[in-house]
Protein backbone atom coordinates (compact mmCIF):
# COMPACT_ATOMS: atom_id res chain seq x y z
CA UNK A 1 0.00 0.00 0.00
CA UNK A 2 1.04 3.58 -0.56
CA UNK A 3 0.35 6.80 1.22
CA UNK A 4 -0.19 9.63 -1.20
CA UNK A 5 0.18 13.10 0.27
CA UNK A 6 -0.85 16.01 -1.86
CA UNK A 7 -0.40 19.68 -0.93
CA UNK A 8 -2.82 21.70 -3.05
CA UNK A 9 -4.47 25.10 -3.29
CA UNK A 10 -7.46 25.13 -0.92
CA UNK A 11 -9.97 26.32 -3.50
CA UNK A 12 -9.09 23.29 -5.66
CA UNK A 13 -10.17 20.90 -2.91
CA UNK A 14 -13.69 20.36 -4.19
CA UNK A 15 -12.51 19.67 -7.72
CA UNK A 16 -9.88 17.20 -6.59
CA UNK A 17 -12.29 15.44 -4.28
CA UNK A 18 -14.80 14.99 -7.05
CA UNK A 19 -12.23 13.80 -9.54
CA UNK A 20 -11.01 11.23 -7.03
CA UNK A 21 -14.52 10.14 -6.27
CA UNK A 22 -15.05 9.44 -9.95
CA UNK A 23 -12.12 7.05 -10.10
CA UNK A 24 -13.39 5.22 -7.05
CA UNK A 25 -11.43 6.78 -4.19
CA UNK A 26 -13.80 7.08 -1.28
CA UNK A 27 -11.50 7.74 1.64
CA UNK A 28 -9.56 10.96 2.03
CA UNK A 29 -8.24 12.81 5.03
CA UNK A 30 -7.75 16.54 4.68
CA UNK A 31 -5.72 18.93 6.83
CA UNK A 32 -5.44 22.69 6.65
CA UNK A 33 -1.77 23.54 6.48
CA UNK A 34 0.42 26.52 5.78
CA UNK A 35 2.95 26.26 3.01
CA UNK A 36 6.22 28.02 2.51
CA UNK A 37 7.59 27.64 -0.98
CA UNK A 38 8.28 29.43 -4.17
CA UNK A 39 4.84 31.06 -4.07
CA UNK A 40 5.25 34.04 -1.83
CA UNK A 41 2.73 35.12 0.76
CA UNK A 42 1.09 38.50 0.86
CA UNK A 43 1.52 41.82 2.59
CA UNK A 44 -0.75 42.94 5.37
CA UNK A 45 -1.16 46.42 6.73
CA UNK A 46 -1.48 47.40 10.34
CA UNK A 47 -1.74 51.10 10.98
CA UNK A 48 0.49 51.93 8.11
CA UNK A 49 3.08 49.29 8.95
CA UNK A 50 3.46 46.71 6.22
CA UNK A 51 4.41 43.22 7.18
CA UNK A 52 4.75 40.09 5.17
CA UNK A 53 2.72 37.01 5.87
CA UNK A 54 4.99 34.31 4.50
CA UNK A 55 2.73 31.35 4.72
CA UNK A 56 0.19 30.48 2.11
CA UNK A 57 -2.88 28.48 3.16
CA UNK A 58 -2.84 25.05 1.58
CA UNK A 59 -4.86 21.87 1.89
CA UNK A 60 -3.06 18.61 2.52
CA UNK A 61 -4.76 15.44 1.29
CA UNK A 62 -3.76 12.04 2.57
CA UNK A 63 -4.90 8.94 0.76
CA UNK A 64 -3.88 5.41 1.51
CA UNK A 65 -4.25 3.29 -1.59
CA UNK A 66 -3.46 -0.16 -2.87
CA UNK A 67 -0.21 -0.15 -4.86
CA UNK A 68 -1.92 -0.65 -8.20
CA UNK A 69 -4.27 2.31 -7.80
CA UNK A 70 -1.55 4.74 -6.80
CA UNK A 71 -0.52 5.81 -10.28
CA UNK A 72 -4.06 6.56 -11.28
CA UNK A 73 -4.70 8.56 -8.14
CA UNK A 74 -1.56 10.61 -8.62
CA UNK A 75 -2.46 11.38 -12.18
CA UNK A 76 -5.98 12.39 -11.22
CA UNK A 77 -4.73 14.74 -8.54
CA UNK A 78 -2.20 16.24 -10.92
CA UNK A 79 -4.87 17.01 -13.46
CA UNK A 80 -7.57 18.27 -11.18
CA UNK A 81 -5.33 20.38 -8.93
CA UNK A 82 -3.40 22.08 -11.68
CA UNK A 83 -3.87 25.76 -12.45
CA UNK A 84 -0.45 26.19 -14.04
CA UNK A 85 0.56 28.89 -11.59
CA UNK A 86 3.26 28.83 -8.97
CA UNK A 87 2.05 27.24 -5.77
CA UNK A 88 0.00 24.45 -7.31
CA UNK A 89 1.70 22.14 -4.87
CA UNK A 90 3.27 18.71 -4.67
CA UNK A 91 2.44 15.07 -4.43
CA UNK A 92 4.56 12.76 -2.29
CA UNK A 93 4.37 8.99 -2.11
CA UNK A 94 5.35 7.02 0.98
CA UNK A 95 5.30 3.31 1.71
CA UNK A 96 2.65 1.97 4.09
CA UNK A 97 3.06 -1.31 5.92
CA UNK A 98 -0.36 -1.94 7.33
CA UNK A 99 -3.89 -0.58 7.44
CA UNK A 100 -6.65 -1.44 9.86
CA UNK A 101 -10.31 -0.46 9.88
CA UNK A 102 -11.21 0.24 13.48
CA UNK A 103 -14.89 -0.59 13.15
CA UNK A 104 -14.41 -4.09 11.77
CA UNK A 105 -10.81 -4.95 12.48
CA UNK A 106 -10.24 -5.66 8.79
CA UNK A 107 -6.62 -5.42 7.78
CA UNK A 108 -4.63 -4.58 4.68
CA UNK A 109 -6.15 -3.41 1.44
CA UNK A 110 -9.65 -4.40 2.42
CA UNK A 111 -9.40 -1.95 5.30
CA UNK A 112 -8.90 1.07 3.13
Amino acid sequence: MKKIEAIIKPFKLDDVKEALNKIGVHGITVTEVKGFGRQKGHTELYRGAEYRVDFVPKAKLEIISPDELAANIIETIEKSAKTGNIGDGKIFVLPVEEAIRIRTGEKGESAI
Partner: protein
Amino acid sequence: MNLNMLKNFKMPLSPLTFIWSLIGGLSLVLFSWVSPVFADGSKVPAFSAGNTAWVLASTALVLIMTPGLGFYYGGMVRRKNVLNTISLSFITICTVSVIWILWGYSLAFGPDAFGGIIGNFKYLGLFAMKEVQHSRYDGTIPSYIYVMFQLMFAIITVALVSGSLVERIKFSSWVVFTIVWLTLVYAPIAQAVWGLGGLFQKMGALDFAGGTVVHIDSGVAGLAGALVLGKRKGYMKENIVQPNQLGYTILGGALLWFGWFGFNAGSALEASPLATSAFLVTNTATAAAALGWMIAEWIRSGKPTTLGMVSGAVAGLVAITPASGFVNPIASIIIGFVAGVICYSMVVYVKPKLGYDDALDAFNVHAIGGAWGALATGLFADPLINSAGRGLFYGNPGQMWVQFLTVITVAAYSFTMSYIIFKVIDKVMGLRVDKETESIGLDITQHDEAGYNF
Protein backbone atom coordinates in the same frame (compact mmCIF):
# COMPACT_ATOMS: atom_id res chain seq x y z
CA MET B 1 -43.52 62.10 9.75
CA ASN B 2 -46.29 64.45 8.88
CA LEU B 3 -46.66 67.66 10.84
CA ASN B 4 -50.39 67.15 11.01
CA MET B 5 -49.87 64.36 13.44
CA LEU B 6 -48.79 66.80 16.01
CA LYS B 7 -52.26 68.08 16.22
CA ASN B 8 -53.94 64.80 16.85
CA PHE B 9 -53.58 64.50 20.50
CA LYS B 10 -56.45 66.58 21.71
CA MET B 11 -57.67 65.55 25.08
CA PRO B 12 -61.05 66.10 26.73
CA LEU B 13 -61.42 68.99 29.13
CA SER B 14 -63.67 68.80 32.14
CA PRO B 15 -64.85 71.90 34.03
CA LEU B 16 -63.23 70.86 37.29
CA THR B 17 -59.85 70.62 35.67
CA PHE B 18 -59.44 74.34 35.52
CA ILE B 19 -59.22 74.78 39.28
CA TRP B 20 -57.11 71.69 39.70
CA SER B 21 -54.79 72.74 36.98
CA LEU B 22 -54.20 76.13 38.49
CA ILE B 23 -53.40 74.60 41.84
CA GLY B 24 -51.28 71.93 40.18
CA GLY B 25 -49.49 74.46 38.05
CA LEU B 26 -48.70 76.70 40.94
CA SER B 27 -47.51 73.89 43.15
CA LEU B 28 -45.32 72.77 40.30
CA VAL B 29 -43.86 76.21 40.16
CA LEU B 30 -43.41 76.32 43.90
CA PHE B 31 -41.73 72.95 43.85
CA SER B 32 -39.11 74.41 41.62
CA TRP B 33 -37.79 76.52 44.44
CA VAL B 34 -36.60 74.01 46.89
CA SER B 35 -33.12 75.29 47.55
CA PRO B 36 -33.20 78.77 46.22
CA VAL B 37 -29.52 79.64 46.18
CA PHE B 38 -26.30 77.71 45.73
CA ALA B 39 -23.38 78.36 48.01
CA ASP B 40 -22.04 80.92 45.56
CA GLY B 41 -25.28 82.85 45.68
CA SER B 42 -26.50 81.87 42.23
CA LYS B 43 -30.12 80.83 41.95
CA VAL B 44 -30.91 77.14 41.85
CA PRO B 45 -33.16 76.33 38.93
CA ALA B 46 -35.87 73.68 39.05
CA PHE B 47 -35.13 70.03 38.43
CA SER B 48 -35.81 69.24 34.82
CA ALA B 49 -37.06 65.75 34.00
CA GLY B 50 -36.03 66.27 30.40
CA ASN B 51 -32.48 67.22 31.29
CA THR B 52 -32.27 64.44 33.82
CA ALA B 53 -33.54 61.95 31.25
CA TRP B 54 -30.81 62.98 28.83
CA VAL B 55 -28.03 62.89 31.42
CA LEU B 56 -29.22 59.49 32.66
CA ALA B 57 -29.13 58.18 29.09
CA SER B 58 -25.78 59.85 28.46
CA THR B 59 -24.25 58.28 31.53
CA ALA B 60 -25.30 54.82 30.35
CA LEU B 61 -23.86 55.65 26.93
CA VAL B 62 -20.51 56.64 28.40
CA LEU B 63 -20.41 53.46 30.49
CA ILE B 64 -20.61 51.27 27.39
CA MET B 65 -17.60 53.09 25.94
CA THR B 66 -15.16 51.35 28.26
CA PRO B 67 -16.07 47.78 27.33
CA GLY B 68 -16.08 49.18 23.81
CA LEU B 69 -12.52 50.33 24.37
CA GLY B 70 -11.69 46.86 25.66
CA PHE B 71 -12.90 45.30 22.42
CA TYR B 72 -11.28 48.02 20.32
CA TYR B 73 -7.95 47.22 21.99
CA GLY B 74 -8.58 43.49 22.40
CA GLY B 75 -9.09 42.85 18.70
CA MET B 76 -5.68 44.30 17.83
CA VAL B 77 -3.44 42.20 20.05
CA ARG B 78 -2.21 38.71 19.46
CA ARG B 79 -4.59 35.88 20.15
CA LYS B 80 -2.78 34.91 23.32
CA ASN B 81 -3.47 38.28 24.95
CA VAL B 82 -7.02 39.00 23.90
CA LEU B 83 -8.78 38.38 27.22
CA ASN B 84 -6.12 40.10 29.27
CA THR B 85 -6.33 43.18 27.09
CA ILE B 86 -10.11 43.40 27.38
CA SER B 87 -9.95 42.77 31.10
CA LEU B 88 -7.62 45.73 31.66
CA SER B 89 -10.56 47.90 30.62
CA PHE B 90 -13.12 45.82 32.45
CA ILE B 91 -11.36 45.84 35.80
CA THR B 92 -10.85 49.58 35.51
CA ILE B 93 -14.61 50.06 35.47
CA CYS B 94 -14.76 48.13 38.72
CA THR B 95 -11.94 49.70 40.68
CA VAL B 96 -12.66 53.26 39.63
CA SER B 97 -16.40 52.87 40.30
CA VAL B 98 -15.74 51.98 43.91
CA ILE B 99 -12.92 54.46 44.54
CA TRP B 100 -14.99 57.24 43.01
CA ILE B 101 -17.67 56.82 45.68
CA LEU B 102 -15.15 56.51 48.47
CA TRP B 103 -12.89 59.43 47.70
CA GLY B 104 -12.46 60.05 43.98
CA TYR B 105 -15.44 62.31 43.41
CA SER B 106 -14.70 64.40 46.45
CA LEU B 107 -11.13 65.09 45.35
CA ALA B 108 -12.10 65.79 41.76
CA PHE B 109 -15.33 67.73 42.12
CA GLY B 110 -15.68 68.63 45.79
CA PRO B 111 -15.26 72.22 46.90
CA ASP B 112 -11.75 73.37 46.19
CA ALA B 113 -9.30 72.50 48.92
CA PHE B 114 -6.19 74.13 47.65
CA GLY B 115 -5.16 76.38 44.82
CA GLY B 116 -7.83 75.24 42.41
CA ILE B 117 -6.20 71.88 41.91
CA ILE B 118 -7.77 69.49 44.37
CA GLY B 119 -11.14 69.09 46.02
CA ASN B 120 -11.62 68.70 49.72
CA PHE B 121 -12.98 65.74 51.64
CA LYS B 122 -16.53 66.99 51.92
CA TYR B 123 -18.03 64.26 49.79
CA LEU B 124 -16.02 61.27 51.01
CA GLY B 125 -18.28 58.24 50.74
CA LEU B 126 -20.93 60.60 49.38
CA PHE B 127 -22.28 60.77 52.92
CA ALA B 128 -22.82 64.50 52.70
CA MET B 129 -24.60 64.26 49.40
CA LYS B 130 -28.17 63.23 48.75
CA GLU B 131 -29.76 62.34 45.47
CA VAL B 132 -32.37 65.05 45.95
CA GLN B 133 -29.68 67.71 46.04
CA HIS B 134 -29.26 69.79 42.97
CA SER B 135 -25.94 69.28 41.29
CA ARG B 136 -23.54 72.16 41.94
CA TYR B 137 -22.62 71.90 38.28
CA ASP B 138 -26.03 72.09 36.74
CA GLY B 139 -28.83 72.77 39.08
CA THR B 140 -31.47 71.23 36.83
CA ILE B 141 -30.26 67.68 37.47
CA PRO B 142 -29.85 65.77 40.74
CA SER B 143 -26.37 65.62 42.18
CA TYR B 144 -26.16 61.81 42.06
CA ILE B 145 -26.36 61.64 38.32
CA TYR B 146 -23.64 64.23 38.00
CA VAL B 147 -21.47 62.02 40.19
CA MET B 148 -22.17 59.10 37.88
CA PHE B 149 -21.70 61.03 34.68
CA GLN B 150 -18.31 62.21 35.85
CA LEU B 151 -17.45 58.71 37.06
CA MET B 152 -17.81 57.36 33.55
CA PHE B 153 -15.28 59.91 32.33
CA ALA B 154 -12.85 58.93 35.05
CA ILE B 155 -13.20 55.25 34.15
CA ILE B 156 -12.50 55.59 30.48
CA THR B 157 -9.60 57.96 31.05
CA VAL B 158 -7.82 55.42 33.19
CA ALA B 159 -8.69 52.58 30.82
CA LEU B 160 -7.26 54.48 27.86
CA VAL B 161 -3.79 54.34 29.41
CA SER B 162 -3.75 50.56 29.06
CA GLY B 163 -3.47 50.87 25.30
CA SER B 164 0.22 51.68 25.62
CA LEU B 165 0.93 48.89 28.07
CA VAL B 166 -0.80 45.80 26.73
CA GLU B 167 0.85 42.48 26.05
CA ARG B 168 3.35 42.92 28.86
CA ILE B 169 1.96 44.60 31.99
CA LYS B 170 1.24 42.51 35.08
CA PHE B 171 -2.46 42.40 35.84
CA SER B 172 -2.02 43.03 39.55
CA SER B 173 0.18 46.04 38.90
CA TRP B 174 -2.41 47.44 36.56
CA VAL B 175 -5.07 47.17 39.26
CA VAL B 176 -2.88 49.10 41.67
CA PHE B 177 -2.06 51.65 39.01
CA THR B 178 -5.73 52.40 38.33
CA ILE B 179 -6.32 53.33 41.94
CA VAL B 180 -3.20 55.42 42.42
CA TRP B 181 -3.36 57.24 39.13
CA LEU B 182 -7.01 58.13 39.54
CA THR B 183 -6.22 59.70 42.88
CA LEU B 184 -2.99 61.48 42.10
CA VAL B 185 -3.36 62.42 38.46
CA TYR B 186 -6.94 62.35 37.28
CA ALA B 187 -8.58 63.98 40.28
CA PRO B 188 -6.37 67.10 40.38
CA ILE B 189 -6.61 67.64 36.62
CA ALA B 190 -10.40 67.28 36.68
CA GLN B 191 -10.62 69.81 39.50
CA ALA B 192 -8.27 72.24 37.79
CA VAL B 193 -10.09 72.14 34.44
CA TRP B 194 -13.70 71.58 35.39
CA GLY B 195 -13.98 72.27 39.11
CA LEU B 196 -15.82 75.38 40.24
CA GLY B 197 -12.90 77.61 40.97
CA GLY B 198 -10.45 75.30 39.26
CA LEU B 199 -7.14 76.72 38.15
CA PHE B 200 -7.62 76.49 34.37
CA GLN B 201 -11.30 77.13 34.74
CA LYS B 202 -10.44 80.53 36.12
CA MET B 203 -7.94 81.18 33.35
CA GLY B 204 -10.75 80.67 30.85
CA ALA B 205 -9.50 77.44 29.29
CA LEU B 206 -12.09 75.87 27.00
CA ASP B 207 -12.52 72.12 27.31
CA PHE B 208 -16.08 71.12 26.68
CA ALA B 209 -15.94 67.39 27.21
CA GLY B 210 -12.42 66.50 28.15
CA GLY B 211 -9.70 67.01 25.59
CA THR B 212 -7.19 67.75 28.31
CA VAL B 213 -8.79 65.96 31.23
CA VAL B 214 -9.47 62.74 29.39
CA HIS B 215 -7.23 62.43 26.38
CA ILE B 216 -4.05 64.38 26.97
CA ASP B 217 -3.44 63.11 30.45
CA SER B 218 -4.20 59.50 29.59
CA GLY B 219 -2.20 59.54 26.38
CA VAL B 220 0.79 61.08 28.07
CA ALA B 221 0.51 58.62 30.94
CA GLY B 222 0.52 55.85 28.35
CA LEU B 223 3.77 57.18 26.97
CA ALA B 224 5.31 57.29 30.43
CA GLY B 225 4.19 53.72 31.00
CA ALA B 226 5.54 52.54 27.67
CA LEU B 227 8.90 54.08 28.53
CA VAL B 228 9.07 52.51 31.97
CA LEU B 229 7.89 49.11 30.71
CA GLY B 230 10.13 49.00 27.66
CA LYS B 231 9.30 47.43 24.34
CA ARG B 232 7.48 44.19 23.83
CA LYS B 233 9.67 41.19 23.06
CA GLY B 234 10.41 41.21 19.37
CA TYR B 235 9.07 44.73 18.79
CA MET B 236 10.33 46.06 15.46
CA LYS B 237 12.39 42.88 15.02
CA GLU B 238 9.83 40.26 14.19
CA ASN B 239 6.21 40.51 13.27
CA ILE B 240 4.36 40.72 16.55
CA VAL B 241 1.38 42.38 14.96
CA GLN B 242 -1.31 39.83 14.36
CA PRO B 243 -4.63 41.37 15.25
CA ASN B 244 -6.55 38.33 16.41
CA GLN B 245 -10.02 39.48 15.41
CA LEU B 246 -10.47 42.89 13.84
CA GLY B 247 -14.22 42.42 14.17
CA TYR B 248 -13.75 43.09 17.88
CA THR B 249 -11.92 46.29 17.01
CA ILE B 250 -14.68 47.48 14.72
CA LEU B 251 -17.31 46.56 17.30
CA GLY B 252 -15.35 48.47 19.91
CA GLY B 253 -14.99 51.45 17.61
CA ALA B 254 -18.73 51.43 16.96
CA LEU B 255 -19.53 51.31 20.68
CA LEU B 256 -17.09 54.18 21.26
CA TRP B 257 -18.75 56.27 18.57
CA PHE B 258 -22.20 55.46 19.93
CA GLY B 259 -21.26 56.17 23.53
CA TRP B 260 -19.38 59.33 22.65
CA PHE B 261 -22.67 61.07 21.92
CA GLY B 262 -23.33 60.75 25.65
CA PHE B 263 -19.81 61.92 26.34
CA ASN B 264 -19.94 65.10 24.29
CA ALA B 265 -23.62 65.96 23.96
CA GLY B 266 -24.19 64.83 27.54
CA SER B 267 -21.54 67.29 28.69
CA ALA B 268 -24.08 70.06 28.11
CA LEU B 269 -25.80 68.51 31.15
CA GLU B 270 -29.07 69.52 29.52
CA ALA B 271 -31.22 68.37 26.62
CA SER B 272 -30.62 71.79 25.16
CA PRO B 273 -29.75 73.28 21.80
CA LEU B 274 -26.11 73.25 22.86
CA ALA B 275 -26.33 69.49 23.40
CA THR B 276 -27.65 69.04 19.88
CA SER B 277 -24.84 71.14 18.51
CA ALA B 278 -22.28 69.03 20.35
CA PHE B 279 -23.96 65.93 18.98
CA LEU B 280 -23.77 67.22 15.43
CA VAL B 281 -20.13 68.24 15.44
CA THR B 282 -19.12 65.05 17.21
CA ASN B 283 -20.57 62.91 14.47
CA THR B 284 -19.25 65.09 11.69
CA ALA B 285 -15.69 65.33 12.98
CA THR B 286 -15.56 61.59 13.57
CA ALA B 287 -16.64 60.81 10.05
CA ALA B 288 -14.22 63.34 8.59
CA ALA B 289 -11.34 61.93 10.63
CA ALA B 290 -12.06 58.38 9.47
CA LEU B 291 -11.93 59.69 5.92
CA GLY B 292 -8.76 61.65 6.67
CA TRP B 293 -6.89 58.64 8.05
CA MET B 294 -8.21 56.37 5.32
CA ILE B 295 -7.23 58.70 2.51
CA ALA B 296 -3.76 59.31 3.97
CA GLU B 297 -3.22 55.58 4.26
CA TRP B 298 -4.66 54.90 0.82
CA ILE B 299 -2.20 57.37 -0.68
CA ARG B 300 0.82 56.12 1.26
CA SER B 301 0.27 52.35 1.35
CA GLY B 302 -2.05 51.87 -1.58
CA LYS B 303 -4.90 50.35 0.38
CA PRO B 304 -7.60 51.69 2.69
CA THR B 305 -7.72 49.46 5.77
CA THR B 306 -10.66 48.83 8.05
CA LEU B 307 -8.38 49.32 11.03
CA GLY B 308 -7.41 52.68 9.53
CA MET B 309 -11.03 53.77 9.20
CA VAL B 310 -11.80 52.83 12.78
CA SER B 311 -8.58 54.35 14.12
CA GLY B 312 -9.36 57.53 12.25
CA ALA B 313 -12.83 57.65 13.72
CA VAL B 314 -11.38 57.36 17.21
CA ALA B 315 -8.88 60.12 16.43
CA GLY B 316 -11.78 62.31 15.34
CA LEU B 317 -13.77 61.59 18.46
CA VAL B 318 -10.76 62.53 20.53
CA ALA B 319 -10.07 65.77 18.68
CA ILE B 320 -13.64 67.05 18.71
CA THR B 321 -14.08 66.34 22.41
CA PRO B 322 -12.80 69.65 23.80
CA ALA B 323 -14.27 71.58 20.88
CA SER B 324 -17.67 69.94 20.77
CA GLY B 325 -19.58 72.67 22.59
CA PHE B 326 -17.90 75.53 20.79
CA VAL B 327 -17.46 74.98 17.08
CA ASN B 328 -19.75 75.05 14.09
CA PRO B 329 -20.40 72.20 11.63
CA ILE B 330 -17.91 73.22 8.96
CA ALA B 331 -15.15 73.71 11.54
CA SER B 332 -15.84 70.19 12.77
CA ILE B 333 -15.14 68.78 9.33
CA ILE B 334 -11.77 70.51 9.31
CA ILE B 335 -10.91 69.54 12.87
CA GLY B 336 -11.80 65.92 12.18
CA PHE B 337 -10.06 65.56 8.86
CA VAL B 338 -6.85 67.09 10.16
CA ALA B 339 -6.99 64.89 13.26
CA GLY B 340 -7.13 61.79 11.07
CA VAL B 341 -4.14 62.89 9.06
CA ILE B 342 -2.09 64.01 12.07
CA CYS B 343 -2.64 60.86 14.10
CA TYR B 344 -1.91 58.66 11.10
CA SER B 345 1.30 60.58 10.55
CA MET B 346 2.29 60.15 14.19
CA VAL B 347 1.79 56.42 13.94
CA VAL B 348 3.66 55.92 10.67
CA TYR B 349 6.35 58.56 10.75
CA VAL B 350 7.07 59.63 14.29
CA LYS B 351 6.51 56.49 16.35
CA PRO B 352 9.01 54.27 14.49
CA LYS B 353 11.66 56.97 14.70
CA LEU B 354 11.30 57.61 18.40
CA GLY B 355 11.18 53.91 18.99
CA TYR B 356 8.96 53.80 22.08
CA ASP B 357 6.50 50.93 22.04
CA ASP B 358 3.14 52.64 22.43
CA ALA B 359 1.56 49.32 21.61
CA LEU B 360 -1.95 50.37 20.64
CA ASP B 361 -1.18 54.06 20.21
CA ALA B 362 -2.81 55.55 23.27
CA PHE B 363 -0.25 58.34 23.12
CA ASN B 364 -0.22 58.78 19.38
CA VAL B 365 -3.97 59.01 19.07
CA HIS B 366 -5.20 60.35 22.40
CA ALA B 367 -2.46 62.71 23.52
CA ILE B 368 -1.73 64.06 20.06
CA GLY B 369 -5.36 64.06 18.91
CA GLY B 370 -6.42 65.62 22.19
CA ALA B 371 -3.78 68.33 21.95
CA TRP B 372 -4.83 69.15 18.42
CA GLY B 373 -8.43 69.32 19.55
CA ALA B 374 -7.61 71.63 22.43
CA LEU B 375 -5.68 73.97 20.18
CA ALA B 376 -8.32 73.76 17.47
CA THR B 377 -10.86 74.90 20.05
CA GLY B 378 -8.72 77.98 20.50
CA LEU B 379 -8.82 78.51 16.76
CA PHE B 380 -12.39 77.68 15.82
CA ALA B 381 -14.51 78.48 18.90
CA ASP B 382 -17.48 80.30 17.43
CA PRO B 383 -19.39 82.66 19.72
CA LEU B 384 -22.55 82.11 17.69
CA ILE B 385 -22.49 78.50 18.82
CA ASN B 386 -21.55 79.24 22.39
CA SER B 387 -20.99 82.77 23.63
CA ALA B 388 -18.64 81.40 26.28
CA GLY B 389 -15.99 80.63 23.69
CA ARG B 390 -14.35 82.83 21.10
CA GLY B 391 -11.34 81.54 19.22
CA LEU B 392 -8.55 83.06 17.16
CA PHE B 393 -10.56 83.02 13.94
CA TYR B 394 -13.27 84.99 15.68
CA GLY B 395 -10.93 87.69 16.88
CA ASN B 396 -9.59 86.35 20.16
CA PRO B 397 -5.96 85.27 19.78
CA GLY B 398 -5.53 85.17 23.56
CA GLN B 399 -7.60 82.01 23.70
CA MET B 400 -4.89 80.10 21.87
CA TRP B 401 -2.42 81.03 24.54
CA VAL B 402 -4.68 79.79 27.31
CA GLN B 403 -5.31 76.56 25.43
CA PHE B 404 -1.63 76.07 24.79
CA LEU B 405 -0.76 76.69 28.40
CA THR B 406 -3.37 74.23 29.59
CA VAL B 407 -2.21 71.52 27.22
CA ILE B 408 1.41 71.92 28.19
CA THR B 409 0.75 72.06 31.90
CA VAL B 410 -1.58 69.09 31.93
CA ALA B 411 0.80 67.06 29.76
CA ALA B 412 3.79 67.92 31.91
CA TYR B 413 1.97 67.18 35.15
CA SER B 414 0.56 63.90 33.90
CA PHE B 415 3.85 62.75 32.41
CA THR B 416 5.87 63.49 35.51
CA MET B 417 3.42 62.01 37.96
CA SER B 418 2.66 59.00 35.81
CA TYR B 419 6.32 58.26 35.28
CA ILE B 420 6.90 58.36 39.02
CA ILE B 421 3.89 56.17 39.71
CA PHE B 422 4.97 53.57 37.18
CA LYS B 423 8.50 53.60 38.55
CA VAL B 424 7.34 53.17 42.11
CA ILE B 425 4.99 50.32 41.22
CA ASP B 426 7.83 48.73 39.29
CA LYS B 427 10.10 48.91 42.33
CA VAL B 428 7.50 47.73 44.79
CA MET B 429 5.80 44.89 42.95
CA GLY B 430 7.20 44.74 39.43
CA LEU B 431 5.42 46.26 36.49
CA ARG B 432 6.19 43.81 33.74
CA VAL B 433 5.72 40.08 33.36
CA ASP B 434 8.82 37.99 32.78
CA LYS B 435 10.01 36.96 29.34
CA GLU B 436 8.57 33.47 29.31
CA THR B 437 5.20 34.71 30.50
CA GLU B 438 5.23 37.23 27.70
CA SER B 439 5.98 34.49 25.16
CA ILE B 440 3.26 32.19 26.42
CA GLY B 441 0.80 35.03 26.51
CA LEU B 442 -1.01 36.85 29.26
CA ASP B 443 -4.35 35.08 28.98
CA ILE B 444 -3.00 31.79 30.24
CA THR B 445 -0.41 33.19 32.58
CA GLN B 446 -2.39 35.98 34.24
CA HIS B 447 -5.86 34.45 34.15
CA ASP B 448 -5.59 30.72 33.41
CA GLU B 449 -7.94 31.22 30.51
CA ALA B 450 -7.90 30.99 26.74
CA GLY B 451 -9.63 33.43 24.43
CA TYR B 452 -10.91 30.85 22.02
CA ASN B 453 -11.59 27.13 22.13
CA PHE B 454 -12.40 26.41 18.53
